[in-house]
């Protein structure tokens, strides 16, 4: 019996030491990990998390022109928003804009991706052209279309005139302005959407097509039965990303219409910009920003849900 005691004791000291070394190592690896992550964490804290909470905080206050809070007003900013016809219109416009913009962008990009996915000579050139609008900035794209939409000199009205139709005041007619801005946006977004969809098409297993060929299936049958279903994860991704991007539209509005005519193209981000940096109503603008944040949060959550589902499918 007496022989056993020392052994146990040594074991305990070993365990003790091992525990300490383990804890030291843990501490060390934690510090090392933090060292690699700290730059990102600091910048995220300063420029993402803090501004987010500050936005929520500001939305409950009135502010002075410098943005310092003056009076706590509780939910007043929000209550005012939901009876403010201009803000309600900007929310409606934003949804309408998403509806005008996202489906056409995705459908056109899908068609382009399908025809650019054929193995043909010189296909690389066409792929580059189709993705090229991704390299065109919002300012440049808006300037191009500003000319196209010009009521007297613009190409679009010239085409209308030569075909005997009446000219359209694209950017100043309330019926057309949002559609005109949408057309610009569709054109701008095709490049990116095309590139993602083409990548999705290329990752489809070619053996699926080969076995369909053996069975003698036609082109459109394969498109419907293989391409579209296999592409659906990528498809959902581009749809949600496009919706989120469209919610954040600003540049086109600033250059093409400044929100006009009669707030007909006033979208949420432009409305926030005007409220904050033109009217200096930072509290009210923050409340609008919170609404935008919630809308985008819902879209992101939807995206994660769909991605999760996609994982289950595979």
């Amino acid at each position, binding site marked *: 019996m007496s022989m056993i005691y020392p052994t146990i004791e040594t074991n305990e000291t070993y365990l003790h030491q091992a525990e300490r070394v383990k804890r030291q190592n843990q501490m060390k690896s934690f510090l090392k990990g933090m060292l690699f992550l700290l730059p990102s964490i600091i910048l995220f804290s300063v420029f993402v998390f803090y501004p987010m909470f500050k936005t929520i905080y500001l939305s409950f206050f009135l502010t002075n022109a410098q943005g310092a809070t003056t009076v706590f007003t509780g939910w007043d900013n929000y209550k005012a928003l939901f009876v403010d016809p201009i803000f309600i219109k900007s929310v409606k416009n934003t949804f309408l804009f998403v509806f005008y913009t996202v489906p056409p962008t995705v459908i056109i990009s899908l068609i382009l991706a399908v025809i650019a996915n054929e193995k*043909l000579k010189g296909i690389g050139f066409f792929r580059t052209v189709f993705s090229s609008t991704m390299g065109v900035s919002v300012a440049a794209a808006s300037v191009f279309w500003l000319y196209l939409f010009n009521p007297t000199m613009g190409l679009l009205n010239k085409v209308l005139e030569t075909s005997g139709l009446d000219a359209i005041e694209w950017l100043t007619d309330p019926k057309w302005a949002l559609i005109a801005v949408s057309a610009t946006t569709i054109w701008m977004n095709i490049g*990116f959407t095309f590139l993602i969809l083409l*990548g999705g098409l290329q990752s489809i297993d070619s053996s699926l097509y080969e076995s369909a060929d053996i069975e003698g299936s036609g082109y459109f049958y394969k498109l419907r039965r293989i391409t579209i279903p296999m592409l659906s994860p990528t498809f959902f991704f581009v749809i949600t990303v496009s919706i989120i991007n469209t919610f954040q539209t600003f540049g086109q509005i600033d250059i093409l219409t400044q929100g006009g005519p009669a707030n007909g193209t006033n979208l949420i981000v432009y409305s926030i910009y005007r409220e904050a940096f033109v009217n200096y109503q930072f509290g009210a603008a923050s409340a609008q920003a919170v609404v935008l944040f919630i809308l985008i949060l819902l879209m992101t959550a939807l995206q994660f849900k769909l991605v999760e589902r996609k994982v289950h499918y595979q």
Partner: protein
Amino acid sequence: MMLSMRKKIVFYVLLIISALLLAGPAIMAIVMSFMTNQDILTGRLPTAFTIDNYIAAFDRLPLLQFLFNSLIVSIVIMLGQLILSSLAAYAFVFLEFKGRDFLFYLFIATMMVPFEASVIPNFHIIRDLNWIDTYAGLTVPFFATTFGTFLLRQNFKQIPKELREASLIAGMGDFKFFLTVVLPVSRTSLVTLGIYGFLTSWNMYLWPLLASTNDTVRTIQIGLKQLQTQEQLNQWGVIMAGAVIVIIPTLILLFLGQKKLQKGLTEGAVK
């Protein structure tokens, strides 16, 4: 899979028509930028070739300064993103420590905060740091990116963990391993992220509009807006010359890097 001749012709016709329609606005802008104002006003096909529009554009605004500013801003953001993303991605792939999963979710959470929704406090932060009209104010807020971190993380994951263990046994520290093994092996993804970072920074609009109030750091995008608002006489040739100057660098970059970009973006998107 061989295509029949008839099918090939159909595809080429479709490809060419779509390419012309899609590139139309940009081609139109390039042509107009070399046209005389008279030709543009009368709306006929160009009768003369001129570079007067470019001379006028550079004359009216310090466009060279704006181009230089855009170049600095884009390169600084690109480098900042590469450094911060690769460091963070390394930690997420190779280092195991308490709280890593929490930090991973924290990174994901940043994707849910759109910059536009938090632009007001961001503006105040830059102002309080006295960073308005500085390169720092235009660049530093964009250094940390979840997209970049995840893109590189996908790539780093393909590097065998045994390689790190061997390096550690050979007395190489994590940082040296990161610099001499991980980064060189991941060149392609770094280039992809670099192209993407440069492209998006060059094309930024809202933030430079807010964070620059004079010509010293103003970027070319805002310069183009200025050019467009200053033109009272419908001098579309000059405005188009400005727009062409804006898109040339990014188009060249896109033409060179389209394949890489597509691969990188798809990986980031689908996985």
